[in-house]
């Protein structure tokens, strides 16, 4: 009898071994696919060309989440406008908060820009738990790979060693490449870059770049004429030579800046995996951003 039970367990395990993972962002999907390998199927809710703050909670996401063994999100209030609806609508007890099938990685990787004291929406769409765009830092994403590997190992102990090995390999690869990317960025002599939103904060922090101005006057508030004049003034005073516009924002405002500062280079850049046709892995994303700084894109 015991043999039959063991046999049945083995058969069912092999038949249903593939873990079904749903992620909020394609960056997390890319990491999960690499760490999970052939034992995991992963898909992302948001697309790489979408602003992750404003994804709509389409019911079709609820159907996918209903079948998931694991839901991986950033947290830090990035997905607060839509993920709770998806999880509630999914009616899947495995992925509710507090269960092993619910994983928020943002709070586990030392978020930047955590506001101190009281915050108010007069400052725009501020995030009370810190800047949520952690996926733009290769070092933090190396740590995220390890966190995801550990969670996959917990849910699927039969392949625990594979997950942990893959995660550490990915973490090491990103660490090695980070050194090379740093050398290439240093070689450009660029130290200050203006962006549209605070999306690239972690990338700049990692590579010792400054981000002294934003085209948004406040997070979530579109550019105004008065603010753009201030930014032009800042660009001139600080001799900034590069604008990087995250590609889900309207980049047409850069024409106005180029009229005043003809020498400035404006690059529209993807800020997520799948944000451009040739970005499939997380390394591709950082490579693309480094090339944009180098002026090769």
């Amino acid at each position: 009898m015991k043999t039959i039970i063991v046999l049945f367990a083995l058969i069912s395990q092999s038949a249903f071994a593939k873990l079904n993972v749903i992620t909020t962002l394609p960056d997390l999907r890319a990491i999960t696919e690499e760490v999970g390998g052939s034992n995991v199927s992963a898909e992302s809710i948001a697309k790489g060309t979408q602003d992750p703050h404003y994804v709509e909670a389409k019911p079709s996401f609820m159907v996918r989440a209903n079948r998931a063994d694991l839901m991986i999100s950033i947290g830090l209030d990035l997905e607060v406008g839509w993920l709770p609806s998806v999880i509630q609508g999914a009616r899947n007890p495995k992925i509710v908060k507090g269960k092993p099938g619910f994983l928020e990685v943002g709070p586990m990787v030392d978020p930047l820009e955590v506001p101190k004291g009281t915050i108010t929406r007069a400052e725009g769409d501020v995030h009370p738990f810190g800047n949520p765009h952690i996926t733009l830092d290769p070092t933090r994403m190396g740590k995220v790979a390890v966190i995801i590997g550990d969670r996959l190992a917990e849910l699927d102990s039969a392949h625990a060693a594979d997950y942990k090995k893959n995660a550490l390999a990915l973490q090491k690869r990103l660490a090695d490449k980070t050194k090379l990317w740093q050398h290439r960025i240093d070689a450009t002599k660029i130290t200050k870059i203006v962006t549209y939103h605070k999306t690239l904060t972690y990338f700049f922090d990692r590579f010792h770049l400054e981000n002294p101005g934003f085209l948004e006057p406040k997070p979530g508030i579109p550019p105004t004429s008065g603010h753009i004049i201030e930014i032009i003034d800042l660009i001139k005073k600080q001799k900034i030579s590069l604008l990087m516009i995250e590609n889900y924002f309207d980049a047409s405002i850069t024409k106005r800046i180029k009229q005043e500062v003809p020498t400035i280079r404006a690059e529209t850049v993807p800020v997520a995996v799948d944000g451009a046709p040739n970005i499939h892995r997380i390394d591709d994303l950082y490579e693309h951003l480094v090339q944009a700084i180098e002026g090769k894109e």
Partner: protein
Amino acid sequence: MKHSLLFILLFGLPALGQNRFNPDISANFLGLYERGTGVSDDRTQSPHNGFALQEAELQMLSDVDPYLRASVLLSISQQKNSADYGIDPEEVFLETTSLPYVTIRGGKFKMALGKHNQLHTHAFPFIDAPLINQLILGDEGLNESGVSANVLLPVDWYSEVTAQAFSLTSEDLYGSGNSGNVGGLLHLKNLFDLTDDLTMEIGLSGTMGKNSLAQTSSVLGADLTFKWRPAIGGKYHALIWQTEYLNADRPGQIDATTHLSQAIVSGAASWLQYQFAERWWVQARQEYVGLTKSVGVPSENKTSFLLGFFPSEFSGFRVQYDFENLQGRGKMDQTVALQYNISIGAHPAHAY
């Protein structure tokens, strides 16, 4: 006393150092200025010409424990035939969070009849509800105490069946004097992703229960919605086309003056909403009441245009122009309304 309790609920607990367990608290409020040839100048009527606080909603939402979450939404609005405002429990319910494939809800809540009836006032696509909803379900919509089961069917697309049993207090549709009578409602919702950018939703719903004359009233509803928001450039452009149809049979209902039957009435509203810039929407709506009707129900048609400006996701300013023909009135009524729509606090996400 009521106000003191509200104050303690909102502000008292943080003072006791319990704020980490406090529910998410938010407030929405809608202010209105309206001027219309068919709108009353009597401030005890709602709507009326001039300025008014259309409604304020206070919402508290929290997990209760690992199995349940609760929502309390108190509505502050003008009372019927009075210039005074009162507090009403618009929605107070608990629902399950950890059952597979089903959500069970109990309490007082908006019934799943069609799509528009489930919206809170601040989420209405236009300043007012469709005429047919107002006529059949009243100003508050169909909002009853009861239980609900929302079942996600195990198919490849989103298909949900909702079954509800509820009290029959709605004056406009039921108003059953016997509290032992229970009404029923069924709703089938199907949503298909036609492309990554375009969805189509089809809904069918029906409700029935005893009315104030101990006869059985019923409503059938159908809705069809297309939503388009591109994955590239979706911050700046979107299009929604929604159509809703309701058909009511209210045996025994008559016009108080003419004594003509008003038992049967049906109507439809169809509207387009186009987002043409990050913070701007332009909208149009066409409505007709009286597709089928008893002799005592005047037919009515109405056209509305709306322009909305939303400085952020927490504030909106809208202007709406309506022209409306009511059978027997002999002239076209025109109305202009201006509205602000403000949200503060930790407001939960709206349904898709």
